[in-house]
C-alpha cells in the first residue's frame, strides 16, 4: 500500500542523509521525499511517499521514529488528509497547438508562467493523479521537460503536527 508520512525533524546538517540512508540500508521503497524548514527555523518538515506491506510500513515508521533527529511523525494515510504536488511542465507550443495547450491549461486550472514563440511553461498544483492526467492530456510529442515536487501533505482538521 502507498503511504504518505510526515516527519518533523531537527533542522540539522545530515538529517536528510540519515533518512535517505535508512531507506537504502534497509531496502525500503521511497517514491518521493520533500523537505524544507518550517516557520520554526530549527525544524524541518519532511514528506515521504513510500509503499510496502503493513509490516514494512510499520517498521519504516519505527525506524524513522528511532532516528535521534526525529521530533514527531505522522502517517497521513491513517486519517483524512490533503495531498498536493506541484509541477512545472515545459511544452512545445507552435501554431494551432498554442491555442489547444492554452485551453488545456484552463481546464486544469493551471497557469502559463513563461512564454516563448515556440514554448510554454505551465505550472500546475494538485493531487499526483491530476498531474498525471495533465501530462496524459498533452498531445503526443509536445512535452519537453517535466519537473515535479513530489507530494506534500497535511492532515485535515484543527490539530497540527507541531511541537
Amino acid at each position, binding site marked *: 500500500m502507498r503511504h504518505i508520512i510526515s516527519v518533523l525533524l531537527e533542522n540539522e546538517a545530515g538529517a536528510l*542523509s540519515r533518512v535517505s540512508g535508512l531507506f537504502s540500508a534497509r531496502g525500503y521503497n521511497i517514491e518521493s521525499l520533500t523537505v524544507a524548514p518550517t516557520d520554526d527555523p530549527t525544524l524541518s518538515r519532511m514528506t515521504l511517499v513510500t509503499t510496502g506491506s503493513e509490516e514494512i510500513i510499520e517498521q519504516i515508521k519505527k525506524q524513522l521514529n*528511532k532516528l*535521534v533527529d526525529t521530533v514527531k511523525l505522522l502517517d497521513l494515510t491513517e486519517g483524512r488528509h490533503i495531498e498536493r504536488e506541484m509541477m512545472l511542465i515545459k511544452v512545445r507550443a507552435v501554431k494551432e497547438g498554442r491555442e489547444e495547450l492554452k485551453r488545456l491549461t484552463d481546464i486544469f486550472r493551471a497557469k502559463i508562467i513563461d512564454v516563448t514563440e515556440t514554448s510554454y511553461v505551465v505550472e500546475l498544483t494538485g493531487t499526483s493523479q491530476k498531474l498525471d492526467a495533465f501530462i496524459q492530456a498533452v498531445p503526443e510529442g509536445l512535452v519537453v521537460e517535466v519537473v515535479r515536487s513530489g507530494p506534500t501533505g497535511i492532515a485535515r482538521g484543527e490539530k497540527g503536527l507541531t511541537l
Partner: protein
Amino acid sequence: MELSGAEIIVQALIDEGVEYVFGYPGGAVLHTYDALFKQDKVKHILVRHEQAATHGADGYARATGRCGVALVTSGPGATNAVTGIATAFMDSIPMVILSGQVPTPVIGSDAFQEVDTVGITRPCVKHNYLVKDVHDLALTIRKAFYIAMSGRPGPVLVDIPKDVTDPKIKIPYHYPKDIKMRSYSPALKGHPGQIKKAVDVLLQAKRPVLYTGGGVILGEASQALRDLVEKTGFPITSTLMGLGAFPMTDPRFLGMLGMHGTYEANMAMHETDVLFAIGARFDDRVTGKIEQFCPHATIIHLDVDPSSISKNVRVDIPIVGPVGSVLADMARLLKEHKQGPDPVALAEWWRQIEEWRGVKCLAYDRHSPLIKPQFAVETLYKVTEGGLYLTSDVGQHQMFAAQFYPFDEPRRWINSGGLGTMGFGLPAAMGVQLAFPDATVACVSGEASILMCIQEMATCKQYDLPIKVILLNNGYMGMVRQWQEFFYESRYSHSYVDALPDFVKLSESFGHVGMRVEQPGDLEGAMREAFAMKDRFVFMDIVVDPAENVYPMIEAGKGHHEMHLSPERELA
C-alpha cells in the same frame, strides 16, 4: 573557567567520570593529546591499531556497564575504528568515539587525511555529530554520552575538526548536568495494560519458555529475571549475548538456543505455547526459518527499542520499556495473583524437557588421543572455578566456550555476537582487565582470529595486563571448515591456516610467557601453571583436534526441530 576546545574535550571526559580513553594519536588530534598530557585524571591507553581502541572501549563497557571511550585521528584513524564501532553497534554497546577531523576551512577539499567520517559511520552508530563551532563542543559531548547510555545503548561518534580544538581560542566552559532533547526520549516505563495482558497470558501457559537476550544484561535486569524464574518456575533459554544473566548452572536453564543451541532449548522453542522474549531481537541465528519459528506459541516481547518488536517475527503482545522496570512491574502483578501457573501442566512440561535433555546433545568423544576443544574449555572452567571474565573471538572456539563454560553472572561473557568480528577478543580483554585489575581475565581464541589483532600484545606489555590467551589451535578457520565439510563436500577452500607463527616465541618476543600444550593429559597442569602466574600475560597455544565440529547445528534456514546432532554422541 576559560578553556580551549582541546581542554574542553578532556574536561568533559573528566566531568563524565571517564577512567580510560583508548586511543591512538595523529595530526588532527594533536591539540587534544597535548591537553591529555597536561592532566592525570583521565588515563589514556595507547593501543597499537585503532580497531583495538574501539574494541578495548567496548570490552570495558560490556564488563562494567559504563560508557567506553575511544579517541582516534582523522582519515585512516577513523576508518580503522569503523570495525569496532560497527561491532559495538550490532550488540548495542554504549561507546563514545571522538575522532579528529581536518580543519573546518578545508573540509570537502580532499585535504590530507580527510574522510567523511560522519558519512562513513552513519549506518553503524546510534548517532553522530560533526562539531563545527567550539561553542557547541561541550554540549555535543554531553549529548553523545547521554544518547550512548540511554534507551537502547549504542556507539555515538563526535567528529571534531582540528581548528575547533585550537589551544589559542579559549571560551567559557560549562558542562550541562541534565539534558533533555525534544527529538529523543527513550521509554522509561512499560505500558501497564500490556504488562497486565502479558502476565495473564503467562499464567495461562502450559508449556512456557523464557527466551532472554543481551538486553537483560544491558538493562541491568539480571536480578529481576532471576526473580521471575523463581516466582514462576518457568524454563529459560538465552541467546549468545544474554549468557550469564541467569545462572547457567541452574537446572532451570536449558542452555543457549539457536544455530548451535542445545537440543532441549531448541525443542522447547519448537513446542512452547507461550514464548516470553526478554531483551532479545529474534536474530536469524536464533530463529532459524521464520515460518517454522515457535509454531504453537503466543509471543510476548519485551524490549526497550520499539523497532525490535515485530521486525522479524510477528509478536502478539508487545511491551516497550526498560527490561528491569517492566519485569519489576510484572513481579508485583504476579504477587497479587492468588493462583500461580498451572502446576500439573508445568510438571508435564518439565518431564518433556528432561526427556530432551536426556539426548545429551553436547556429549563428545572423551577418549580421543587429541585434545578436544570442548575438553579444553571444560578444563578452563575447572581450573578457574567459573570465576573468569572470558572474552572471545569468532568461530568454533566461541561456540565451544558458550556451550561449555557456564557463566553464573552477567557481564562475564564478552563476545561479538551481532557482527561476529574476528580480532575482538584480545583488545576487548584489555578493556576488561583495565576495568577490573584484580579479576582473572582470559580470551579464548582461534589461531586465525588471534592474528587479526595480535599487535595488541604490545599494549598488554606496556600496561602490564595479565590476560591469559587460551588459543584453541585447530590449524583451520574451524567454523569455515565445518561449513565447507557440511555444505561443500569437504572442499576446504582457503580455510587452512598455513604458515602459522610459533606462538610461544611470538609471545616471548613481546615480553610475555608462551606455552604450548599438545597432550590431553598435560592440559590441566599447564592451565593451573598459567593461571598461577597472576601478574603475567600468558599465551597458551593449545593444539586441538583439527576435525572437530560444533554440535548441535541447525543449518541456516531450517527450523528448530531440524538439528544435526553429533555423530560422536554414542561414544561418550
